[in-house]
């Protein structure tokens, strides 16, 4: 009990210095947590993808399409439960700054394959029967204040023209990690317009999404599909939805790595600051340690007191940092909604935050602890002068 009291009293002896250090640790831990969350948000698409879905695209690259005739061929492959198709539409709402993903999909089959997009039965029905209808995610609808029945006009970048859609449903995600910022409309609407405008580009599909009867069949089915279209005009590449999403993340991994490095740099910075504080504190108290030793306290007592003080300061800072990261994370999540649909702080991140604070406290205490424990009584006392 005594040593706890000593630690707390000691920690707040220099109120200003301790508070500054706590603020520093809090800021660093908050930054660390937010950067880790940012990296997590990068992988959100991968996390939310299902293992029982495959994606088939043109083997050359995503800009090339596949003929619509592949759909029935793929459906006949053993192990395939359902097939749907989608095109990246790349439409712009008013200005480019309002970016959100929008896809032309085969409505009925697509919604069957993605049970995580939850629509009420009547919304689903009214979307499927309206060829100019679209469904939008809940947070996207909030962002632009759309309601059911509103008309949304997108400017096509890949498919020229002004495209009008009527909002027929607002979906919400089944999981926390489901992307609620997308817009889906009927592939048939796109295809029929293209048939009139540029027939050469009609009947073309960006990707096929394939639902599997059993996730363990993924490798077999992929090989079967790719084998079927080998040496044709449009060769395919089939992979699980997870690795399809991963390939996007992998292309930007230089940035992810940079953010990860930076998140450790901030901890090192604060470690240096905290180490400095503890070193100064210990230096000032050398005579005190000597006195305590004279009174009969062992080196372990003194070491414990110094170490405990450092850990106490760091952990208080860490806790404050974790607490601050929630409002800060909420704010960033709102500001960057268009880049990162999912931005939530995980339990793992909180644990790492506290671990980082603990490490800062430990490292900062190393030198002063050693100094305090090994101080020679005569030397220490002499400094009082």
């Amino acid at each position, binding site marked *: 009990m005594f040593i706890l009291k000593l630690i707390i009293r000691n920690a707040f002896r220099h109120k200003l*210095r301790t508070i500054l250090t706590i603020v520093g640790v809090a800021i660093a831990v908050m930054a660390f947590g937010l950067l880790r969350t940012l990296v997590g948000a990068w992988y959100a698409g991968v996390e939310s993808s299902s293992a029982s879905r495959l994606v088939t695209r043109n083997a050359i690259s*995503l800009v090339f399409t596949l003929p619509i005739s592949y759909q029935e061929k793929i459906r006949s492959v053993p192990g395939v439960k359902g097939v749907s198709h989608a095109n990246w539409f790349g439409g712009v709402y008013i200005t480019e700054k309002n970016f959100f993903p929008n896809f032309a999909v085969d409505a009925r089959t697509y919604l069957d394959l993605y049970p995580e997009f939850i629509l009420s039965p009547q919304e689903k029905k009214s979307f499927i029967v309206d060829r100019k209808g679209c469904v939008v995610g809940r947070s996207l609808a909030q962002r632009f204040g759309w309601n059911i029945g509103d008309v949304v006009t997108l400017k096509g970048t890949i498919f*020229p023209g002004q495209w009008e859609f009527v909002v027929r449903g607002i979906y919400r995600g089944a999981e926390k990690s489901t992307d609620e910022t997308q817009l889906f409309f009927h592939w048939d609407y796109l295809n029929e317009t293209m048939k009139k405008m540029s027939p050469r580009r009609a009947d073309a599909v960006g990707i096929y999404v394939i639902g599997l009867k059993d996730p363990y069949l993924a490798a077999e089915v992929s090989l079967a599909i790719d084998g079927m279209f080998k040496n044709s*005009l449009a060769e395919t590449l089939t992979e699980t939805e997870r690795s399809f999403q991963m390939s996007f993340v992998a292309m930007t991994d230089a940035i992810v790595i*940079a953010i990860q490095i930076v998140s450790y740099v901030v901890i090192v910075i604060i470690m240096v600051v905290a180490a400095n504080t503890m070193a100064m504190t210990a230096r000032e108290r050398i005579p005190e340690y000597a006195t305590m030793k004279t009174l009969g306290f062992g080196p372990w007592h003194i070491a414990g007191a110094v170490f405990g003080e450092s850990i106490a300061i760091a952990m208080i800072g860490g806790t404050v940092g974790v607490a601050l990261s929630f409002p800060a994370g909420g704010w960033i999540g709102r500001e960057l909604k268009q880049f990162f649909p999912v931005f939530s702080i995980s339990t793992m991140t909180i644990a790492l935050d506290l671990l980082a604070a603990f490490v800062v406290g430990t490292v900062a205490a190393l030198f002063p602890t050693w100094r305090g424990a090994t101080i020679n009584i005569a030397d220490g006392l002499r400094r009082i*002068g």
Partner: protein
Amino acid sequence: MPERFYTSNSQLRTLHSELSLKIMSIPFSYSFRNLWTRRLTTVLTASGMALVVFVFADTLMLAEGLRKTLVETGSSDNVIVIRKASESEVQSGIDRQQAAIVGTQPEIAVGRNGNQLLAREIVVLISLTKRGTDKPANVVIRGIGDASLALRPQVGLVAGRMPRPGSSEVIAGDSVARRFRGGGIGETLRFGMRDWMVVGVFEAGTTGYSSEIWGDVDQLMQAFRRPVYSSVLFKLRDSSEFDALKVRIESDPRLTLEAKRETRYYSDQSEMMATFLRILGITLTIIFSLGAMIGAMITMYAAVANRTAEIGTLRAMGFRRRSILISFLMESILLGLTGGCVGLFFASFMQLITISTMNWQTFSELAFSFTLTGTIAFQSLLFSMIMGLIGGVLPAIRASRMNITEALRAS
């Protein structure tokens, strides 16, 4: 604190001799020697600052590297024509008829051989695997015409030869040749049901072209079954005629195209990336500098507390409050500057690193490197001094406000 007195006694002696000549300002060496006396603390605080300056300088260098890549990729005399609202060459499509109409514009410059300096090009993305890994990346493949090379003076062949028109031959940018499987000279790439022989490697400095593969436009259109061009690029005979030309092309009822200066086109392309880097850089710098400034503040408060008696002595000798304030600020700024120099020193090594990432707007590979300029070096050092200044203001004010008699008693 007798130890402090030994050091400061000698300092006070120097001070005393100077005092008779110059009145009222504490010499700079006092600040410097104070930092030197408390080496461990100085090193710790300065290294915190150094890390912050390192990050600050790096974000600026990265933004500068990206800007430099873009500026050098485009030329302001060149005009690029793409389909209206398509934003990039990859999304654009121009049929042969429209491309021919663009070719009749009178503003197009004429080359030495009497032909127009105009190239109809096709740009598509193909997915290639990086050497030594299984990681795919999207690479731009560009179908070129006769004038393509002349329109881009920054591009030059360094090995091999140009592809023969009408053959399945391609040349690769040095960045592609080095990093992608099948990209080196003599190797083959397979796409569009054909094997393409790499017959040459070109160098394009820090421009985006180094991550591209070039081949004959007509062959590529055939291979990809894509009977439209992506863009038309030409040089203006007179740069000032751009506005008139733009109006004419965009209001022509036969055309659904838009014209942009090449420089403008490339900076639009990576606007999102530039914004992202800027926001990330500013946010990181602000958060980090808060940490470092707190560090400086702790150090300077301790410095003031340790030297209470000394400050009292200085005041008793006749130094003004303002001199004390300036002296402590000097010390703090010097601390910041030390950190700044160290941080900048390490940041300069980052120039050896090239970042390659995907540009979200075009889905293609974009490579750029950290670039250090005089302005960035100056900004970083200034930033470090400002951090020192802000960290030192409150402690310095406390020092200058001390009461002489109480301060002297503190010993």
